[in-house]
């Protein structure tokens, strides 16, 4: 994937200043930065949910805007921060909806689809919840169902907006393992994260999304060496000392 001179925002309001980046297969790229800095906007531009103000995103050699949604849906899956409200859908139904790109024209699933959904649910440790009503699940369980949904879509690229939200510490750590495994199998993962310490552990590279819309592309090592977190979040010396301990843990 190649991001070429991308500038993102809404109408005339520029949120992300022009930047370019090439991401190779199987890479994990995390976006970290302060709230409201534009992480979501950037992710939406990359996944084609909103059109960039200028510049383009290429998948292979093709501009993402020229790839049909049908084709794109087999190559890219997303997790958003919006809360999903459903009616009469079980956990399995929600996960299975990630298989719609592969289903027949009435949205009916075959055994391969069901197997993929089951595997993804096992991976996210919600296998025994599969027949539960989605509405009655806890927020953390819902989040894991949505992640399982994105996984069973079997994409090349998974674009995740704050996938760790609602997850407790154990599931956060487990999610890290899952992401590592998927990336080692060749899936490219672009994700925004609230926890710098997690981002540092799993990412090949980090995008530091600053308040002013500038993007800094760095490796985890550079973040630790250069006290970059301190500037990024505008921390005081005391605050940074506390954070630093968690970063190097």
């Amino acid at each position, binding site marked *: 994937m190649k991001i070429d001179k991308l500038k993102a925002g809404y109408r005339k309001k520029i949120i992300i200043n022009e930047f370019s980046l090439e991401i190779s297969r199987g890479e994990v790229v995390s976006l970290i930065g302060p709230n409201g800095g534009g992480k979501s906007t950037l992710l939406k531009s990359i*996944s084609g*949910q909103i059109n960039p103000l200028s510049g383009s995103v290429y998948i292979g050699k093709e501009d993402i805007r020229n790839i*049909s*949604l*049908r*084709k*794109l*849906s*087999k190559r*890219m*899956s*997303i997790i*958003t921060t*919006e809360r*999903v*409200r*459903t*009616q*009469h*859908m079980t956990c399995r*139904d*929600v996960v299975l*909806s*990630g298989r*719609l*790109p592969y*289903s*027949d*024209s*009435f*949205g*009916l699933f075959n055994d391969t689809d069901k197997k993929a959904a089951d595997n993804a649910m096992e991976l996210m440790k919600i296998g025994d919840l599969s*027949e539960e009503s989605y*509405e009655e699940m806890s927020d953390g369980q819902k989040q894991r169902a949505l992640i399982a949904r994105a996984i069973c*879509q079997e994409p090349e690229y998974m674009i995740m907006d704050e996938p760790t939200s609602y997850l407790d510490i154990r599931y956060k750590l487990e999610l890290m393992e899952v992401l590592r495994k998927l990336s080692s199998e060749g899936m490219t993962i672009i994700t925004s994260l609230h926890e710098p310490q997690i981002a540092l552990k799993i990412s090949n590279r980090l995008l530091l999304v600053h308040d002013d819309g500038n993007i800094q592309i760095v490796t985890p090592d550079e973040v630790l060496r250069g006290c970059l977190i301190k500037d990024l979040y505008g921390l005081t010396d005391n605050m940074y000392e506390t954070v630093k301990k968690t970063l190097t843990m």
Partner: protein
Amino acid sequence: MQKKTAARIVCVFGILTILVIISFLLNLCIGTVKVDLTDIFRIIFTGAADEKYRNIIMDIRLPRALMTVILGGGLAVSGFLLQTFFANPIAGPYILGISSGAKMAVALFLIFVVGNTGRSSSFLLVITAFAGALVATGFIILISSHVKNMASLLAAGIMIGYICSAVTDFLIAFADDSDIVNLHSWSQGSFSGADMNGALYCLVIVGISMVFVMMLSKSLDAFRLGENYARSVGVNIRLCRILIIILSSLLSACVTAYAGPVSFIGIAVPFLMREALKSSKPVILIPASFLSGSVFCLISDFLARRIFAPTELNISAVTSLFGAPIVILMIIRRYRSHEN
């Protein structure tokens, strides 16, 4: 667990099919003049029977029952589509004022065009109703782009319904008597004017619409998780939204053109089916809604004809009586599930 779901689906469809057949025959047999079941089969399949009975069945009851089956189903599916569009189970063609928009357009057409030229056709009638439904839907969509709150949107829809009904009432009040023969009873909703030609038209329009609706079922399926996720599994959101609006307007326009606005079926029936099937999968829910819409409408029409026979009630009086409590139940349920 999945086997249980499959058994439930077969069971619900079995019951619905039986109910459609029973209530259809009930509508044919019972009326001011009772006709035996054997006579009915003889009349329909061989045509050999008493002239008087044959006229009653072939000219009055059969077209009326056919139309009720087709339009009742269409109305339920129209409601289902709108619920998907607005992501709200309380949306429906009647409550959002779409039926009233169609009603106003038909009233205008009947008074100004038919009244002046004396010419009318089923086709023109449906087109006019469709235009009226689209205009009302357009207003609703316009409002929905400003108002994100569903309760306010529904209130706005009800207001649009009132405005259209008020205009219709004005038109009726000032129109010549000759223009409004039947117009008044029609504007309240009734299947009483059905003839074989009209039933045939409905069959074609609703039939074609249903084919398209079924073709949309995969996209509607994806819509259950909201627009962003629908897009991520390959649904062209804009195209899909336009198709939903056109189809739901066409279905409710067809009902309004032939039977006037019929209330609550569009909301109550899909809700009941979701509960009965414990599923919201469109590919199952669409045909189920159609069948149960037919049953609901057949029984309501039967009651409308029979409760105070020979005086006929308008059908909305009956559908409201049964439909409105179901909708109230639904609102309470939703409220409770949000509390938790």
